[in-house]
């Protein structure tokens, strides 16, 4: 029995009550908590939608009655669609990276981890561009309710993507240094869980904030 257990070293967690690794359950619990976190942020955005007293506004132009200055509708849906596509692709890369780690494919595990991190970074680049554009167009955190809720919601999402990218780069670094094998699968798995979750949150944000007018 002991020998068998040692030989099956790639599955060292069979002694837990559920057979799952502790970290995996903890990450699921964490994701449950994060759901409530983002639900609260998204609900606030929706509750305050259309209640801003001044522009710029997300979907329609706004003219300042005092100065006559006109602000254009601020959301750039084509550009954000592109960044959304990149982020969705990153989930595919993440699946491929996990699969490569499980079958000890050192070459492709590195390639797909790097691609996932790169896609995440690209998304963050889009977001930095978007935020800069918005500030130039007159939308700041303290400008109106739209600015407060929009920047807080998407900013927290961006912070989550940033954590995910750091996590991915750390995995990539370990892969380069000593190689990730099947016994590390659970550690790639929990990163993947987190990454997919952050992706799903973005789908909700993209739909509710950008697409629904």
């Amino acid at each position, binding site marked *: 029995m*002991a020998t068998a257990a040692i030989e099956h070293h790639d599955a060292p967690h*069979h*002694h*837990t009550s559920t057979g799952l690794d502790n970290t995996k*359950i903890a990450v699921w619990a964490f994701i449950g908590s*994060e759901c409530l*976190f983002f639900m609260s942020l998204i609900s606030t955005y929706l509750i305050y939608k259309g*209640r801003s007293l001044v522009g710029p506004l997300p979907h329609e132009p706004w003219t300042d009655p005092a100065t006559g200055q006109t602000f254009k509708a601020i959301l750039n849906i084509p550009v954000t669609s592109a960044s959304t596509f990149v982020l969705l692709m990153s989930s595919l890369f993440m699946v491929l990276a996990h699969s490569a780690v499980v079958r000890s494919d050192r070459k492709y595990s590195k390639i797909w981890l790097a691609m996932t991190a790169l896609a995440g970074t690209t998304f963050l680049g889009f977001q930095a561009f978007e935020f800069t554009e918005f500030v130039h167009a007159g939308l700041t955190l303290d400008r109106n309710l739209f600015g407060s809720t929009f920047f*807080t919601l998407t900013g927290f999402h961006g912070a989550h993507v940033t954590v995910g990218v750091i996590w991915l780069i750390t995995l990539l670094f370990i892969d380069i240094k000593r190689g990730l094998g099947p016994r590390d699968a659970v*550690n790639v798995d929990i990163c993947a869980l987190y990454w997919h979750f952050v992706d799903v949150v973005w789908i909700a944000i993209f739909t509710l904030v950008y697409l629904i007018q």
Partner: protein
Amino acid sequence: MATTVAAPPYATAYETKRGGLWDWLTTVDHKKIGQLYLYTAIFWFFVGGLEAGLIRWQLRQPNAGFISADLYNQLFTMHGTTMIFLAIMPLSAAFFNYLIPLQIGARDVAFPRLNAFSYWVFLAGGLFMNFSWLVGAAPDGGWFGYVPLTTRAYLPGPNIDYWLLGLQILGISSLAAAFNFATTIINMRAPGMHFMRMPIFTWASFITQFLLILAFPIITVALTFLQFDRFFGTNFYTADAGADPLLWQHLFWLFGHPEVYILILPAFGLVSEVLPTFSRKPLFGYPVMVYSIILIAFLGFGVWAHHMFAVGMGPIADSVFGVTTMLIAIPTGVKIFNWLGTLWGGSLRFTTAMLFAVGLVGLFTIGGISGIMHSSPPADLQQTDSYFIVSHFHYVLFGGSMMGIFAGVYYYFPKITGRLMSESLGKWHFWLTFVGMNLTFFPMHYAGLTGMARRTFTYDANQGWDVENMTATIGYFVLAVAMTIFLVNLLRSRSKGQRVGNDPWGAPTIEWTLPSPVPEYNFETLPTVTSRYPLWDRQHSGHAEVPGAPETESHTEHEDIVDVAEEHRGLPGEPPLPTAAELGIHLPSPTIKPLLAALALTLPFIGLMMNKNLILMIGGGAAFVLVMYSWLLTPIEPEHHPPAPVGGGDKPMADSPFWTAR
């Protein structure tokens, strides 16, 4: 899978000397962390009690000028915040820590270092918030911090900043602990410990973790909005910018009502352990108790707006929330009757723990009934923000949570220390608490119903509240004496208490098979559990003498104690318990990193208080990342060259790859 593998013959190089300061700072042992929580929370409990004393002295007579209105605001805000977040929650956490691994048959929690981190963050949060007293700017917006009062426009000082940032820090602690305990209970149960065999305290704790996991992110968001409004000029709560200040109330109470159950469910769990033991009967209706806990937690998320009847939500919302509130009384009532059913026909032993447990059943019921009174919106409109409410929540929190916690302290103290707390001092403690508590809080019902508003620092004479307030103040001093007796008893019994063996009370659950105090590895071999009350089953099947039978009681002066110290290993002249190294059990290495991580995490908050000091904010953040890398890249156990025994019975900790996060 459960085969125990022979211990590899290597010495563990990480045996540290025990009991020193460094030992406490670096410990990852759930039992030590539990004690750190216990003593820290008791300290804050006394701080909160002192704040209550100043409030009561100010209110002892009409138009008293003992303290200013401003200081009074700070006192009631900090009294509430301290008692909820720094006393009752961490007292529950002390029991989560100490008991859950012992009750489910595990060597430690799932993430021992994260557990230490939770404690240090809790300590940092408490110190952060109370530091405000030293600069004379304690929080003064009430414990639920309603906007717009708490926005910068109305309270420009740093007071509220200490409060909201302190709560953010404490939230991190609670969430980290909740992930840890939820995982522990799901995944670390001993063989045979099915969910429906778990001790009821573990069940109550389990559900409480889900409440924490789901409720705390909501207040995190509410507080983040307030933080951004106060520090970065956002408009979340600014009515002038079109915002609706009711957003805060909804978010706060969406957290706040589950929080009520976070405060009471662990105490319910504790008395559900104490009552069967001292009735010598299994808990009446165990499955129904479990379903009731789940139902209470579930309904707890659907009643938040009953805190907001006075804001005028309209008849439909008022009716819905009134009805859901009344519904929640059903599972709660079921629990009360199940406790009575447990007592019914039992052979009752009124130890101090039992007295406190029965005290909870009685006093919580009073608070529960006044709670149902204000589930009706028209009644609530008369009662809200009056002393009637103050009386209600003190009956459920003091008469409920604290009574349950005291029961737990007296019950588990021998397991923690190997010694009994004094029963005679304990009975003084109970009866003075019982009398003092009713003297203090019962008259508030009358003061409240005749119109005395909460949170006003004084009142005029001849409004019919003089006697009530004087009685309450007298009651406070009775309570103060009771709590002093408790503190003396607690500290003195650590070294002077009567030594006991494994199971001084004749209790049924597996933590009582362990030596008292419990060795650092908990179980020599992990138990296989076959029923809900394995110790009683063992006695009834004739494998052991029945503890508590009259003949075994006769040799002790404590008639309620069935297991005194004679057979206890580790006494002078007795063979000491084997060490973890001798047994070949791998324990997680002590580490200072959770403490360092907690410190680093606090720095950005301190930086924000110091006029947004960028060096502290960025430096603290960077330090936190560095410590986390160092932590996660260090294995939980020292590296060892012989292959790790991975047999299920020997070693619950995962065989860590070198960078596995724990």
